[in-house]
């Protein structure tokens, strides 16, 4: 057989993707390998680039909701939240308090579901076939809950400027409380099945260590950043919505390896459960939406509004020139920054570790290519 090798005959190139089981989408990584060891990992992006930013510039503000969900299909709520919050901030709309609480509840539920998908998929990458089914079983409860209020299971388009499009009812609240109770016991199960498993620890411990300096250099956010021990969470550091009213912790890791990122995410599930519990307890009565005209106009000016999505800081920068359409829209997506760590992270590791690292970064490819 012929191997396209380097001149010194020592290294060869391996194409991981665009269709590969562990890239979770159409990401292509060109690995320069020395045996099983990786020397260079070059990521090739753009296989599902859809020009979301440009589309945004040609649309009325309210029309762009549906596109927001399509970037990060796993935590669509947070993306809707970011967009809604931005427009509300620029237009000076004050949503009712109940709407803000509903937003927090749904966003946190969605964050848990996103982490659960990640948990399952990550273990699938590491070769464990069963946890993904358990994770999807739990996620199904969240999806059922969200479907009962939003009417769809993945791309919700639930938020509106000045509120949400449908109120939550008693069934939803009861279901959510039941879910919290169940999820707490399931977390113990994951702890036994996965977290303490010696094979799992062997696969993630001291793999892909991100130092604090490195995380800052690459602009990593979210659990990837917190895994290295930096306590940075938009919900705490630049509070938006009603997050300041809740009592929750920011879980952080110590060494910044794949295991820390895993632990941070699992701890975040617990924190999200806490937030939801508090929000349900304090859920105020009142309207869930203020009526505003469907096609709003913004004053000229610009604004950046970040939110904490399941993967890190998602921010929108928007420049308005006073028309019904944005003049310029820039999306800052977390996976894109987190992926840029990949090359430096995988140097000197084996291909199995590369899969482990890629999984621990928790990438959603449509969000990278947007």
């Amino acid at each position, binding site marked *: 057989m012929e191997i396209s090798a380097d001149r010194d005959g020592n290294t060869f190139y391996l194409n991981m993707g665009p269709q590969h089981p562990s890239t979770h989408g159409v990401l292509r990584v060109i690995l320069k390998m020395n045996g099983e060891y990786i020397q260079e990992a070059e990521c090739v992006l753009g296989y599902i680039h859809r020009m979301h930013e440009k589309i945004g510039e040609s649309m009325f503000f309210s029309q762009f909701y549906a596109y927001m969900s399509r970037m990060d299909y796993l935590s669509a709520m947070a993306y809707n939240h970011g967009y809604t919050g931005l427009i509300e901030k620029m237009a000076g709309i004050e949503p009712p308090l109940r709407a803000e609480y509903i937003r927090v509840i749904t966003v946190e539920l969605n964050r848990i579901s996103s982490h659960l998908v990640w948990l399952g998929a990550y273990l699938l990458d590491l*070769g464990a076939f069963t946890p993904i089914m358990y994770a999807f079983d739990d996620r199904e409860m969240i999806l059922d809950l969200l479907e009962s209020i939003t009417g769809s299971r993945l791309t919700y388009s639930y938020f509106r400027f000045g509120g949400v499009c449908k109120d939550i009812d008693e069934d939803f609240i009861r279901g959510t409380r039941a879910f919290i109770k169940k999820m707490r016991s399931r977390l113990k199960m994951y702890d036994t099945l996965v977290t303490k*498993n010696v094979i799992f620890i062997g696969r993630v411990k001291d793999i892909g260590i991100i130092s604090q300096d490195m995380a800052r250099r690459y602009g990593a956010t979210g659990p990837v950043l917190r895994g290295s021990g930096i306590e940075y969470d938009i919900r705490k550091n630049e509070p938006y919505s009603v997050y300041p009213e809740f009592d929750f912790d920011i879980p952080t890791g110590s060494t910044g390896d794949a295991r820390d990122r895993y632990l941070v995410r699992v701890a975040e599930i617990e924190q999200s459960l806490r937030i939801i519990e508090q929000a349900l307890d304090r859920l105020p009565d009142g309207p869930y939406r203020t009526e505003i005209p469907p096609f709003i106009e913004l004053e000229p000016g610009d604004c950046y509004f970040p939110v904490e999505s399941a993967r890190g800081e998602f921010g929108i920068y928007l420049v308005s020139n006073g028309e019904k359409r944005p003049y310029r829209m820039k999306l800052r997506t977390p996976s894109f920054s987190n992926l840029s760590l990949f090359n430096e992270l995988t140097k000197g590791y084996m*291909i199995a*570790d590369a899969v482990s690292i890629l999984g621990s970064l928790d990438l959603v490819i449509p969000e990278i290519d947007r």
Partner: protein
Amino acid sequence: MIVLPRLALSILMVLGFIALNGMMLVYMERKVAGHMQRRLGPMEVGPHGILQTLVDGIKLIGKQYIPPYKIDRPLYLLAPVICFVPVVLAFITLPFSEKLQVRDLNVGLLVIFALGSMTVLSLFMAGWSSNNKYSLIGAFRSVSQSLAYEIPMLLSVLSIVLMTNTLSLREIVEAQSPIPHIVFQPVAFLIFFICCVAETNRAPFDLPEAESELTAGFHTEYSGMGFALFFLAEYTNIVVVCATTTVLFLGGWKGIPLPFMQYTGVVWFLIKLYLLVFVMMWFRWTYPRVRIDQLLNLSWKVLTPLALINLVVTAVVLKII
């Protein structure tokens, strides 16, 4: 002479057993996987999906043969066959019950290991000839893995051979007539079973075909019958190693006496055999995959020394007794 008809009958029975067993194991694997993941598994074809495997087999037979570009064709075509044949030959000496044995060879144990070690060559050929880097890495892994695990496997078996003073599988079974060897040799059993899992490329040691890293490893480029043969060989290999474990450690066909024990001992044998297979599946659907260096470390740094110590201890104890 009844040798020839007996031989023909045995071959027919073995082939029938392999085919049925392949179907049965694939079905079992799906059901075990399904229930461990709180699903049902196949349910559509036949009652409880029993015929699903048959349908899949027919589909595989009917598939088009698609040779990839620039393959080493003779090797590519030969590899599945070379993978399959030794596994089948191992049935020659496996004693299913006192009378249900094709041929009791006085070196039966060695025959099984010799045939088992031939499979590696076919994996290497498949990986090399497919002209695919994933296959190549898979072949690399399979060769180093089987080299590493053959040693503790043989060492752990040696302690059994020391105890029984024979290499014939039937005599080994006869030797454990009141108490199976697992009682005296739990460490050897553990080492042997772990090595079996590794030798058959089952999770958590399924590195040569690790699908999240190497897509499908050495059989990435195979489709249709080539793939089916690899698949069948894998499942038959599982039966062979589990049967060997049963013979060596669990007392083979011994059990509560049934009428016509000389033949019906096969019931006990199969129960023990499928229990081991179930444990293997249980492993597969529970654990993540280990990494290649961890795999080799486990063999060289843990299992081999442990097997050596076990062997020495066995020899000393036998001498004292």
